[in-house]
Structure formats: C-alpha cells, structure tokens
C-alpha cells in the first residue's frame, strides 16, 4: 500500500500534515507523537522578528468549532532556525515553515533565510491570517497583491512554495489561479473564517481582538467545497484543511481534490490522532482496493 503523495518536488510519505498554528513548532509534541511519521510538520507562522501576539482571551469555543485570535505570537525566523531546527532535523521531521510578512520584502527575506536551512522541506506562504492587520490578509484578499507576493518569493527560493489561501473572499479559486500563475507549487486552504462571538452579559466580544478565525468541524463542508473548486481551477496540488477530525474527513477532502491534508483543531482535542488517521486511510484503501493514496485525489463521482 502506497500512502505517498507529491507536492511539487517534495514527496511526502503520507498525506497527513499538522496545520500551522495548531502544532506549535512541532517539538511540543515530540514526547507523544513520532514527528517523522507525519507527511510533514507545518510549524507556526514566522516573521523576521519575534512577535508578542494578542492579549488573552485568545480563543472561545463555538458550536463544533472554535474562534481564535492568537495574533501570530512567535519567536521569529532566526531563533527558529537556531533553537528548533536542530531538534526537528534530529527527529526526522519533514518541516514545512509557514512564512509571514508585513511587507513583500519581509516575506522575501524570511523565505531567503529559510531556503539555506538544512531540513526545511517547503515554505507555506501565509497570506491569509485574519487576525492581525499586517498578517498577510491584505495580500491574500487582493488578486494583484497575491500575484505580486507569490512572484517575489518565487524568485527568492527554490523550495516548494505553497501559498495558504483565505476563504474570506468571493472566489477562492481565482486566488488559487493567481498563485499558480506566479509560480506556486501548490496551494493550501482554507485558513480560518473571519467570525465573531459576543458575550451578551457584558456586551463585549468574547476574545480580546474582537474578531477571530473560526475553525473546527463547523467549517468542514465549506472548506470541502472550496477545495473542490480550487482543485478544479488549477493543475498544481491542493492541500486541504478545515475541520478534519477523522480518516473519513481526510478521505472526503482527498476525493474532493486535495492531494494532502492538514489537521489543526482536532489535534487540540486529540493529540494522539495521527496513527489513527493513518490506520483509517489504510483501512479504507484496503476495503476499496486502492493501492496508492494518490489515486484517490479528485475522484469525486457526480454520477451523471
């Protein structure tokens, strides 16, 4: 049975990745998860410099989901390379770094630094964080800006480049096309849906930032639809995410067109989920006589 999938020049041993912002820098989980067993570990978004993030409360639970506005707290690319990469390499993790920037120059600079680091397998370009003004969403919500930042980073790195798209636009597939036309090797989606929860007793927003990004099972059907649309709009691979909590959900995204998937919120609830997801995919492949996981991608049958 072959679980491997290909994202540009990168071959992953299976389609399962941690979602950025939901798995720390990976090492937090090293005591309980075999990091080398994941297709890739996508680490928390990194700017050039350290960032403090928003004051708490940073999350609030919603029906079958959660709203977050962490504010991209992070240690910055230099400390990441110095303090986290050696151990990630030692543990055999396939590391994809989520690259943030408040300007095109910063995206380019962070990408350039990471391109020279042994063990960084790919870059995910965060042009979709809904929670900070300079978090990239100004690039991710405008087609010309998306094209410009992807093209600029493309020139700066030979690593597989995966822009992460926001669902907070009218047509996600047009952004996937803009990414493809400017040299992206794949796109990942969806980042969270901009949303709000109000505490009616105090009449205040439930989280300090006011608005935040909605994730979890509540968003899954919308994410599946968007992955389907993008997979039909581009030739490059689509990495799907949004509320995945079981092997069934992984398969749903793959059948809809995702070559690989990322798991975020479910890892909060169940950090031991990874081997179960893999076993569930294998079980499905056995039951359906599928030899290669890649053969499942985009096999949605409308029956007409």
């Amino acid at each position, binding site marked *: 049975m072959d679980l491997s999938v290909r994202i540009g020049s990168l071959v992953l041993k299976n389609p399962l990745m941690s979602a950025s912002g939901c798995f720390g820098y990976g090492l937090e989980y090293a005591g309980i998860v075999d990091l080398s067993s994941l297709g890739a570990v996508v680490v928390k978004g990194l700017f050039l410099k350290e960032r403090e993030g928003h004051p*708490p409360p940073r999350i609030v639970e919603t029906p079958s989901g*959660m709203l*977050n506005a962490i504010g991209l707290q992070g240690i910055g690319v230099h400390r990441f390379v110095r303090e986290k990469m050696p151990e990630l390499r030692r543990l055999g993790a396939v590391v994809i770094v989520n690259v943030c920037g408040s300007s095109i120059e910063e995206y380019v600079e962070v990408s350039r630094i990471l391109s020279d680091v042994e063990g960084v397998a790919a870059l995910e370009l965060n042009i979709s964080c809904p929670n900070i003004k300079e978090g990239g969403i100004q690039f991710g919500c405008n087609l010309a800006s998306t094209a410009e930042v992807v093209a600029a980073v493309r020139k700066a790195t030979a690593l597989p480049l995966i822009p992460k798209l926001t669902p907070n636009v009218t047509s996600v597939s047009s952004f996937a096309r803009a990414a493809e036309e400017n040299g992206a090797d794949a796109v990942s989606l969806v980042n969270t849906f901009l949303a709000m929860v109000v505490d009616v007793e105090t009449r205040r927003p439930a989280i300090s930032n006011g608005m935040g990004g909605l994730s979890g099972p509540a968003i899954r059907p919308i994410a599946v639809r968007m992955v389907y649309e993008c997979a039909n709009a581009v030739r490059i691979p689509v990495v799907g995410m949004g509320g995945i909590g079981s092997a069934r959900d992984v398969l749903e995204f793959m059948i809809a067109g995702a070559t690989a998937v990322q798991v975020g919120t479910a*890892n909060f609830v169940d950090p031991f989920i990874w081997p179960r997801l893999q076993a569930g995919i294998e079980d499905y492949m056995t039951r359906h006589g599928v030899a290669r996981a890649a053969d499942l991608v985009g096999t949605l049958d409308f029956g007409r």
Partner: protein
Amino acid sequence: MYTFPMPPLDVPALVLGNTHLSADYNVLRLEAPAIAADCLPGQFVMIRTAPGTDPLLRRPFSVFEILRDAEGTPAGLSVLCKRIGPGTTRLYDAAAGDRLAVLGPLGKPFSVVSPPVEAWMVAGGVGLAPFATLTEALRAAGAPARLFYGGRSRADLFYLDWFGSRGVTLDLATEDGSLGARGRVTAPLEEALRARAAGSRVMLYACGPELMLKAVADLARSYGCPSEISTERIMGCGLGGCYSCVVRVRDSEGTPHFVRSCLNGPVFNGDDLVWE
C-alpha cells in the same frame, strides 16, 4: 525540547462517582491509575466533557485528590469543578459508570517546601483545587501547612474537615461573613504575615481569582516571602500547540513576554508574573 516530568497519557477514565457539593460545585472521581501515579501537586488534566464535537475542546482542571486503593496505590484522581458553562455543566451532571477522556498529567508542579519553611496556601473559590495534593506532599515532607481559604459565603467553602484532619491550620474568610472573617481572604493573610515570628520562613502558594493572586504576589513581595502562583486561563490544548493560555511573565532581564501557562505553568514564581 519540551520535557514533561512524565509524558502525558490519554485514558478513557471511568467515572467512579460524582459528589454535588452545592448547586454549582461538584467533585468528580475518575479511574485513571496511570495518570494518578505520575501526578505531582499543581499539575492538571484536560478532560473531554462529552464525546463528539460539541463541546469540542477539552477543559483544564487541577488534579484535586489522588484516589488510592486499600494498599495505598494510586487508582484515580478527582477534580473539583465549578459549573460555569456547557462543558462544566456536563461534568456536574456526569454519573458513575460514564467514561470521560482524561489527558495528563500536564504542566509544571508546585515546589514542595521542607521544614523549617512553612507552607501557607491561599485559595479563593474553586482555587482550592490544587491544594489537596499539595497538602499530601507537604505532610510527607513534614512541612507545617496553613490554608487561607475564601469564598462568597459558608456554602462555598468545602473540604474543611479534609484539610483539618490532615493537620492544616485553617484561616477562613467569606464575603458575607457567614464563616470566618468577613471580606477577602487576603486580609487574614496579611494579618498573619504581620504577626508571624521574626525569622520564620514562609512560602506562599496561591490559586484563585486574578485579583486575589495579584494581592498575594504583592503581599509576598512586601513581606519578603517567595510565592508560587497557579494561574487559570482558557486553554485550547494543554500541550503548547495553540498559544491560547498565555500569561505575561518577566524574563531574567526583566522584559515581559507572553508564555504559555500550559507549558511554563500553570504554577509560576509570583515575582515573575506581570499583572495586566
């Protein structure tokens, strides 16, 4: 690397019993021998309050008691819950025979003092939770223990006999004056700090509402005592993945940073905490 004292386990714990202490408070006893065996005072567990996706996230709880079998071997743990939302309501309504996913032990524990240092614990409301396991550890270390415990009224103060029978001196306060001193628990604490014998050494431990914690940290500094404070934050995962539960802490150079209370806490040195 992030090193756990012991790697946490996720077990489908059988509910052994659920005691309703009041209309809001309950003590849930859970069968979890492997977690209980490794648990240190001040550590916490993340409990899934229901199967399925609503409520979705686990809830953090200080380990309250370590339950032991007839031979004294850890067989499980209890948590002290206060009903404040849908998740804690499910735990209030849980029945013996139910199963709940319990992940732990997690977080940095209290340091346990030894004689001649005295241990003074300060608890507000549900902040009593980490002090039962600490009391057991202090007894084992032979350290004299005192509990300053405050709540709204006498009906909100629990387990007084439990602590009393383990040699803990109790100093109680209620906002309505129905038991102990009237007002905040930090008033009898300050009185005791002022009255203590010259040269006596006291470690202050605190858990409870944020304002109480700040007051304890301030008193500790004023009276020259070290303090360890257990913070409470909304947590997403308990493992350092989500960055939800941050607390502002000064580093060795005095610069404040947000750190994750699940990994760097929940117990912090009171002098390091920055109050908002």
